[in-house]
């Protein structure tokens, strides 16, 4: 059943394999699944393992099960309006119910979404009468002229029919849907509105126009579409406010290791006791999260303005989450004899002072490396050379797209001195990985 669904999921970037189908089988046997809403929720909790997969998964689900193809960034209701499924569903819905034609399109979409996301839990609430009680206006409760009781009973009966669908029947229907899925390219047959899991095909109409389950699931699906929280961060995109957290994750690999060893007393005692009182010292490698970072930011010129804020936000977050030294210096295009402590570049710091720091500092230089050739004169190149000589763990992060680097002469020159990485989460991750390969120097 649904053999091709995992593949569709993978196409949308959600990892899925055969195991998800085996689990579905188990869930079916355990009587967990009765409606499309159940299927949506089931795969949502079993396939999706990260909030950023909820968006792509929802797209995959709508594509495969509902026949609604949601384009990237499109609103759910627009996608539904385009879909053949919705038009079929409307035809069913209008059939013999002319008064329905006055309903607002937005309401119709809501109704459609409610049907798609109706879960067996919602249906049970109808059967238990909770839903109806909740909708009941308390002021009208004692009005004898209403005669709604009959309606409610009918609704409960119909809803009960959903639950009565037995497993064999459900399977038969699902298989039929699967066949339809295979023929989809030719026929365009989908299960909502044309049979499928609902015993009536058009549950909303069958339930006498009374809405089941509110608009919980449908509302959720709408919120998912287009909310960046539920989509993966493009790790090749520039570091911005949106993906600072992803970048932070890639920076976390910065862990210091030392050659020091230390006597692990608890393990020594434990092992000694286990050996009946023979204590052999047990030594372990000392690793610690000690991390010293120097940040050098080119904040001169308009080209860099856009990037400075997210970069600072990133390293400031680092500082609040990890205990370590972080020093920030500023420069304009390139350095000669001084760098600056403040953003406005008024407080000068001699380059020598930075160069006299512990060589185990990790140095991130952030700049576009593009300037007039005369600015990067020999003196400046020598200073940069001393930096790369002194600090082994040094990386240049360049916000300019990698494919333009070779055009600028100064960029090419600086790349001879430093390893240069694009200023993206992936670039930063690579920079950190390369840094970790380099051993510490003794101070």
């Amino acid at each position, binding site marked *: 059943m649904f053999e091709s669904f995992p593949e569709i999921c993978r196409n949308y970037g959600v990892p899925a394999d055969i195991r998800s189908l085996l689990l579905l089988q188990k*869930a079916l046997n355990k009587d967990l699944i009765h409606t499309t809403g159940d299927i949506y*929720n089931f795969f949502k909790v079993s396939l999706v393992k990260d909030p950023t997969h909820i968006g792509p998964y929802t797209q995959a689900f709508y594509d495969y099960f509902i026949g609604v193809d949601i384009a990237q960034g499109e609103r759910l209701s627009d996608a539904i309006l385009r879909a053949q499924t919705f038009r079929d569903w409307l035809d069913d819905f209008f059939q013999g119910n002319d008064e329905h034609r006055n309903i607002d399109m937005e309401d119709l979409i809501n109704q459609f979404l409610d049907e798609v996301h109706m879960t067996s839990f919602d249906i*049970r609430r109808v059967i238990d009468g909770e839903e109806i009680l909740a909708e009941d206006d308390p002021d009208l409760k004692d009005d004898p002229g209403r005669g709604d009781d009959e309606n409610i009973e009918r609704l409960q009966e119909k809803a009960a029919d959903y639950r009565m669908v037995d497993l064999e029947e459900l399977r038969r229907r699902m298989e039929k849907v699967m066949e339809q899925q295979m023929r989809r390219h030719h026929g365009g047959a989908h299960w909502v509105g044309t049979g499928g899991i609902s015993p009536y095909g058009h549950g909303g109409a069958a339930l006498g126009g009374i809405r089941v389950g509110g608009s919980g699931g449908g509302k959720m699906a709408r919120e998912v579409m287009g909310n960046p929280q539920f989509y993966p961060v493009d790790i090749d995109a520039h570091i911005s406010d949106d993906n600072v957290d992803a970048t932070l994750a890639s920076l976390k690999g910065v862990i210091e290791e030392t050659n020091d060893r230390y006597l692990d007393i608890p393990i020594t005692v434990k092992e000694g006791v286990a050996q009946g009182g023979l204590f052999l010292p047990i030594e372990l490698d000392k690793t610690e999260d000690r991390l010293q970072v120097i940040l050098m930011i080119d904040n001169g010129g308009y080209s860099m303005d856009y990037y400075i804020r997210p970069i600072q936000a990133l390293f400031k977050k680092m500082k609040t989450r990890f205990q370590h030294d972080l020093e920030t210096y500023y420069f304009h295009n390139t350095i000669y004899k001084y760098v600056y402590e403040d953003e406005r570049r008024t407080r000068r710091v001699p380059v020598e002072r930075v160069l006299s720091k512990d060589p185990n500092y990790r140095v991130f230089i952030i700049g576009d490396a593009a300037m007039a050739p005369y600015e990067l004169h020999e003196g400046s190149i020598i200073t940069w050379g001393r930096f790369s000589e002194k600090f082994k763990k040094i990386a240049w992060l360049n916000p300019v797209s990698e494919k333009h680097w070779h055009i600028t002469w100064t960029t090419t020159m600086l790349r001879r001195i430093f390893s240069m990485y694009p200023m993206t989460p992936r670039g930063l991750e690579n920079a950190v990985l390369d840094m970790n390969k380099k051993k510490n120097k003794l101070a």
Partner: protein
Amino acid sequence: MADTTQWEGSDKYLCDKDLAQAFHIARVLGMPLLIEGEPGTGKTELPLQYARDLNLDLFVYPVGSKSTVEQFVARFDHVKYLRDSQIEVLNAQREEKGLESKLSTGGRSTDRLSDYVQMGPAAKAYSTPNSVLLIDEIDKAPREFPNDLLYALSHRKFIMPESGEIIETTELDMPAIVITSNREQELPTAFKGRCVYHYIAFPSPEIMRDIVRKHYPKTDDNIVSEAISIFYQLRQLGLERAPSTRELLNWLKYMQSFSKKETIERIKKLDGLGALIKNHDDVRRVQRNLKEDLSRPGGATRY
């Protein structure tokens, strides 16, 4: 047999419909439920309230940076074992010398290795049918910890150290396992694969109102609206650490001691901001941005 009817929250705890269904699926399939979400969205509350509501045995394992599977499952008390075996030697010597009195091992015998096994919350939960096991904040654990749990999670059994005793449970008696994470570190894929996953999105203002009502049913509606309105404005400022549900509830708790009129005044003046904002830079930012806004008539948007 384990209770597998769907649980939808209690009078004190508002369980989101999707979360209720995820929890239900997890229990029916006998898989652990992994809940992720921002701090203060009620992740830990679910198992606590569930156990309280249905009167089930609850076992909690709070994870820390030094957590090991030993603490979680069971450990063998080597020190006690060594002490007891020394005592046995001593007792034999005393007997040789004709001394009557014996040193006690507290009823333990070095022949029975299981006397020295100290069960952790996992082993206890697995030997109590239909109990609840909470593994809180697993993202704080050392990297290997989740991987070490994989065997137990997929085979539903633990092997006790040294004694070799096996603690096993069936799919029907399986405890309801809830694991929470604040996403401070990514969990291994294989581990996530064995869990049913639910991400708690931050509640909308309407739901937040319901949550507040559950906790403070007597508080005046205007106070609640005012507080919630300011709360969501604070969240939009892009603070280092945005206030969460827990902070809002604490703030309202503080407000309980004043009269209605005074409370609204105090809320508008952001009195007791320390309950909401826990970072110095953030406090300054709030004062810069929000105080001016709120002092203007009609400045605050209503939710």
